[in-house]
């Protein structure tokens, strides 16, 4: 088997100093290149915590997180941030666009943060991404002037700005109505097909999970089951 893109080995996570809450218990998980996986589980099962550890936003209490075979544990925060900016993209449930910026600028921001300033081609790439999500005519709209579905599509475009290897999506359709949610999900699948970007989607919507290549079920901080999804 080829080296997995992201590999978790015996990851545990506890919170609190006095009263310690154990959220994750010995998680072993591999995400392959170009994979489209779902992470499901009841609320409180540790999905978000696991997602944050996968996304290098949080450190595990014990265990290792390897990105492209490289242990991220010894890296300092700056190195993890740089790695995150290069290799990972995020889509959050509540869209989380920056309201001070236009749709185009929101897509541009990860590229600017990484390069430090605007470089030739960045704006064209951001436009192409907006085009791909069908919002090119909304490029100069403020984030707050877009509908929920449009905001989520811009957030997806933003997650793809730096051509990440893996996009982590936390309930990307959770805050949208069924049709808009389905559209956003289709978009993720399309990018997965066309760009080869791997996706890990946290959801509690079984219809969405069923359409992923692989479904990982998390219960009480343990992986209970893994199965292949329906649609390829």
């Amino acid at each position, binding site marked *: 088997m080829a080296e997995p893109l992201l590999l978790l080995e015996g990851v545990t996570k506890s919170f609190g100093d006095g009263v310690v809450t154990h959220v994750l218990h010995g998680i072993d998980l591999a995400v392959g290149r170009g994979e489209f996986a779902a992470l499901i589980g009841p609320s409180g099962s540790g999905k978000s915590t696991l997602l944050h550890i996968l996304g290098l*936003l949080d450190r595990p209490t014990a265990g290792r997180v390897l990105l492209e075979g490289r242990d991220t544990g010894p890296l300092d925060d*700056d190195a993890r941030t740089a790695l995150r900016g290069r290799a990972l993209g995020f889509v*959050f449930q509540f869209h989380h666009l*920056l309201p*001070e*910026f236009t749709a185009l600028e929101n897509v541009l921001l*990860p590229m600017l943060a990484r390069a430090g300033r605007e470089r030739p081609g960045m704006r064209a790439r951001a436009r192409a991404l907006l085009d791909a999500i069908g919002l090119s005519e909304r490029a100069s709209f403020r984030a707050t002037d877009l509908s929920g579905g449009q905001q989520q599509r811009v957030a997806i475009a933003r997650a793809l700005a730096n051509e990440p290897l893996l996009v982590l999506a936390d309930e990307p359709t959770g805050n949208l109505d069924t049709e808009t949610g389905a559209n956003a999900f289709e978009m993720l699948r399309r990018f997965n097909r066309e760009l080869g970007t791997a996706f890990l989607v946290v959801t509690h919507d079984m219809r969405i999970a069923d359409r992923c290549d692989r479904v990982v079920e998390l219960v009480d901080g343990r992986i209970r089951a893994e199965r292949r999804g329906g649609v390829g």
Partner: protein
Amino acid sequence: MPFTWLVALRFLREGRFQTLLILSGVGVGVGVIVFLSALISGLQTSLVDRTLGTQPHIVMRAPDDVVRPARQGPAVAARLEPPAQRLRSILAWQQALSTVRALPGVTAAAPIVGGAAFAVRGLANRSVALRGVDGPSYARIIDIEPRLVAGAFDVSGTRAVIGTELAKDLGIGVGDKLRIETPIGRSDVFLVSGVFDVGNKDLNLRWVFVSLRSAQTLLDLVGGVSTIEVKVARIFDAEAIAGEISGRTGLVAESWMRLNTQLLVGLRSQSASSWMIQLFVVVAVALGIASVLVVSVVQKSREIGILKAMGTSTRQVVRIFLIQGALVGLVGSVAGVAFGSGLALFFASLAKNPDGSATFPVELGPGLFLAAAAVATVTGLLSAVAPARRAARLDPAEVIRYG
């Protein structure tokens, strides 16, 4: 534009009301600093100008006579009577004069023959201070010319220039004759060529300017001078230069600072209190900037978390807030300079002296403006340190989860 500048500017622009509030705060603070500085330095300059308008910066004279008891046998003097100080010439004064003129910081030096005399006309007489001067070189020490109310400053031959009070007391004016008598019994008749008003009643009565040669004859100081008066480029260097002059020439050299200690103490305490006020204004401005930025960090914690999640480094987050602080300081200071200058000019226009000059003169200049802008910018930058560190410490996972 660098990414950090873009985000900082956008945060400021979108926080309209807060930004306006904080800019006004900085503006008022800087305005107070500009106004106070302009007023205090204006007042001090005018005070020093008035004081030094009739005083040289440094006066050099021969050392005092001292008693040197002759030691003969075991006898010890029980009491030394200090000698009366007679009028004496500075030894080798030409040499001392050229030494002083060559010193760095000295702009002019002039020899003076000064002593007590009587101005007599008919039955009236007044005790006066006779000042024998060399017209052109003296004008560079104290410029009498612009203070003349009649005639010209001409002391050549047997011409004299007197003050308005003496002219009034003796009932004379330009073209009239005046007899000067000295205690040693010499006298001469002078033609009044000019009448001055130096703004000091006592000096307007007592100063009588004649030529060096006439004064030397009248005071029995032929070929000699009693004092050398010196002007320096920077008035607050006078004391140091006086020390240097003493060391080089062996003469007594006293600066205006030594002769006006009260004034100097007054100026210094005025400056000190002005500095204190300005310091507290700066502290208040800093606290204002810091508190608004801290609120902004709290308000924008979700955005900061997103920025971090998408790869913005801690250093970049810190920079975003430092830039905001510095920009607020700089832009606020521009408004403050305008406000403070306007206030100062308005204040100066309120009260006028009889001669039309401002009662409260103000000193505004690019130096003050630049200093105010620099202080405000640095204050903004420093005030942003705590908020920036707070933003840098934000845990993206936490603000995304709960934000």
